[in-house]
């Protein structure tokens, strides 16, 4: 039962990432692209944790923690660049 639920969740997040790639490719403005990239990072974190459940190993928590930090910092840097034209003043 849990294996089926795991597969369904992995399928859902895979489809969600495909939708995000579609938005990144076909969005109207830069803001939408940054938003889609941020969503993609969050979906990737969920996929990594699901992968950790499948293989029953806690190694992927560090990976997902680092990925969350890098995703946050890169999104803030993108927005800062859109707002001010440079990142570190």
């Amino acid at each position: 039962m849990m294996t089926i639920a795991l597969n369904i969740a992995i399928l859902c997040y895979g489809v969600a990432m495909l939708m995000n790639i579609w938005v990144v490719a076909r969005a109207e403005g830069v803001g939408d692209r940054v938003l889609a990239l941020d969503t993609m990072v969050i979906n990737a974190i969920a996929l990594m944790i699901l992968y950790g459940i499948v293989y029953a190993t806690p190694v992927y928590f560090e990976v997902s923690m680092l990925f969350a930090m890098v995703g946050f910092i890169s999104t803030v840097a993108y927005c800062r660049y859109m707002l001010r034209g440079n990142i570190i003043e």
Partner: protein
Amino acid sequence: MTLIGEILISVLLLAAGFFGLVGSFGLIKLDQPMTRLHAPTKATTLGVGSVLIASMLYFLFFTDGITFHELMITLFLFLTAPVVAHFIAKAHLHRNWKPEELPQPEGDSTWGVYATDESETPDTPVKPQE
């Protein structure tokens, strides 16, 4: 006991998949940029929260140790998601809207996005270092 754990984890995983799909579908479906902010930042954070709780329950029920890393990731995501949404909304205001199109805030204050910081333009130019 194991059956209860399996049922709990399965329900959480299904809810997480549903919310992840809804969040990413809302990014395509909603038509205005400001409403588009709602879908991913709320639904996806809820979905990742469910995945993390499911992972915690899995390591509690099926292995011999309990881990608290997931709570750290949940806390980090819950703290950063509003900041990111606010930043993207600010960038959207900055790029696509003029100050005249927005409602005027009360008093003498203006919108923070369009405010000019006086401290960055000093009257006397900074002397170059010798």
